[in-house]
């Protein structure tokens, strides 16, 4: 617990409610050091997984000329392996605000 | 303080004309001194103890020199300042190492 002179209770500056219907999602490649760091995206909770991947994740990933789109991709959500349903939303796939998704393979 | 304490103490001084007398005085007053030059500064390192004596500096400088003036020369140090008076400044480590 923090030691302070008075009551110490302040809200998070990145809390989900500030983003309305959207969430922040982090994505990184687990097997490559080409990208200096994981990325942050702002996406609607209701966005379909497949739209998220095609519209947001892939434009970043394919900026690496050695990224192979034809290979089978697999995913990890936070610490666990993850098989997303492509037609369900981010929220329905269990992705929460500021969760980190790892892309494996490619 | 243990007499056998040999962890190195050091001072880094700006290498310029003003400080030459100070550097030479330290060289004269400290045995086993290791001197290292990097651009702009000189690092003087001694095992366990390093002393800067006013008389030695004055002898080389040809004028009076207050130990306070050492503040103009020093860039950084390693070790405790265990003594700082009119006549000398001593750097050493404060406590013996435990086995």
């Amino acid at each position, binding site marked *: 617990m923090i030691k302070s002179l008075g009551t*110490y209770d*302040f809200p998070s500056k990145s809390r989900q409610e500030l983003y309305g219907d959207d969430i922040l999602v982090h994505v990184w490649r687990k097997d490559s050091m080409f990208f200096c760091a994981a990325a942050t995206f702002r996406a609607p909770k209701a966005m379909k997984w497949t739209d998220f991947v095609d519209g947001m994740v892939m434009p970043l990933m394919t900026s690496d000329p050695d990224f192979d789109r034809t290979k089978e991709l697999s995913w990890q959500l936070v610490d666990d392996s993850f098989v997303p349903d492509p037609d369900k939303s981010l929220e329905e796939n269990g992705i929460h605000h500021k969760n980190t998704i790892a892309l494996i393979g490619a | 303080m243990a007499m056998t304490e040999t962890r190195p103490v050091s001072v880094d001084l700006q290498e310029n004309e003003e400080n030459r007398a100070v550097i030479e005085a330290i060289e004269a007053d400290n045995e086993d001194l290791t001197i290292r030059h990097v651009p702009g500064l000189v690092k003087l390192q001694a095992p366990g103890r390093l002393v800067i004596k006013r008389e030695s500096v004055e002898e080389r400088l040809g004028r009076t020199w207050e130990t306070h003036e050492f503040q*103009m020369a020093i*860039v950084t140090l390693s070790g405790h300042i265990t003594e*700082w008076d009119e006549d000398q400044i001593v750097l050493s480590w404060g406590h013996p190492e435990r086995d």
Partner: protein
Amino acid sequence: MTTNPTKPVKKLSMQQRYSALTRDIDWTPSYVTEDQLYPHTTYEGIKIHDWSKWDDPFRLTVDAYYRYQAEKDKRLYAVLDGFAQGQGHLTLSDPAYLNAMKIFLGGVTPLEYQANRHFSYLARHFNGPGPRFAAQCQSVDELRHAQTEIHTLSNYNKYYSGMHNFAKMHDRVWYLSVPKSYFDDALSAGPFEFLIAIGFSFEYLLTNLLFVPFMSGASFNGDLPTMTFGFSAQSDESRHMTLGLEAIKFLLEQDEANVPIVQEWVDKWFWRGYRVTAIIAMMLDYMLPRPVMSWKESFELYFEQQMLNGLFPDLAYYGIRPPKGVEQAIWEKEHLSHLVYHTFYQFSHAANLTTSIPTKEHQAWLASAYPDAFEQFYKPKWDKLEKMAAEGNRYFYPGLPQLCQVCQVPMLFTEHGDPTKLCQRHSEFKGEHFNFCSDHCKEIFDREPEKYVQAWLPVHQIYLGNCGGPTIPDVLAWYGYAEGDSGEMLGNVDHNNWKKWHAQVDDSVGGRESVEVGGAAEAGKGA
């Protein structure tokens, strides 16, 4: 007068003068209690029984202080003047060198000013006159540092980009939130924690890594004014180091109950400060056109040898062990600068500085300085990026990075022990998910989550629309950037001007026809 005029007045000894001019000016409050007068020195749990035990080995008195500080300034301003009059900026090793000074001006100088403010607070709030006077001197020193740094670099600001607007940039630019949040963390702590955070952990453990090898680098790259202000500031720093060291010894000697509190602060503030020095690692290894001393060598000399092997055996006497995270920092010394510069290379379209692929000669130096890491892990990256650039695809990261909730550095660090795997850590607090770059940043968060949930993370704020607008150009305009501040170094305004000015110098012996007169406006700019 009854004194005999032929007999000189006996001078006080240094110790007597110090007692008379520093300690004896204190008084005991009569109409308020001591607790009312000093209301901030108990809530952190630190117990002080005898403030007079604080020792100042410098025996500094106010008259001596101002006399020597004035002399230091006189010497510095003589150098600045000579440099400006002699068009000294043309004698730099390369304009790329100034990228390092842009980081310094935006990242370090504002911290000097914050230190001035907070040491002034300590000079009011400590119960004992010894630490109050030491804090007062340090406060004035820090103001001098901020001012002399601004004066020194203002000469370059006349000719080069990226230095205007530095104070605004400090408050706004993504990577400058790293040093800013570090200092905000310390300023918002109690007075004793601040003393351990800045006085001990930064000034004593880490400041050498910032000033000494870097200012030596300035000397080696023709930047006489920076070398002079650096060493001038550093001469105060030896006094600050002493204050930091006296502070920790004083707290540890006053009460055994202070030991575990101080240990937690040492652990926390070593790691906070160390993460800030990541940028120094990059400056030393990649941003000095003529490198002097590698980060690895500096870390070994100024941290491992002087601190771990010199100081910490002394602190063991009090029951203090080296900070957590030291082993990881030692391991990272081989990798740190490469990872950080790689990040700046990919994000320099959004920085107030320019980057480029290190030259062949520079890479050869890196390989010799890092025989166990550079060729294996980092040269292949530069080769790939160089090939892309040659094909007209100078790479810039097309997105925003993930930031660590505590240190605010993009998540560029690897697992301890494995340079091929980026590190990811996380915690939950009140139902919210938080991400960290390392075990130690996670530990810092978990200890005081209430504090770090308030972090102003630039990427999150950009996505909230709080940084000028939704697009990158909107954000860069809000940062106050101008033409030439960012992107690829080759073909940049500064680079072109440099070529032009040097061609003019050569023109004194003829050859005007060959002079490139291309102005700043048509200079290429990355991204």
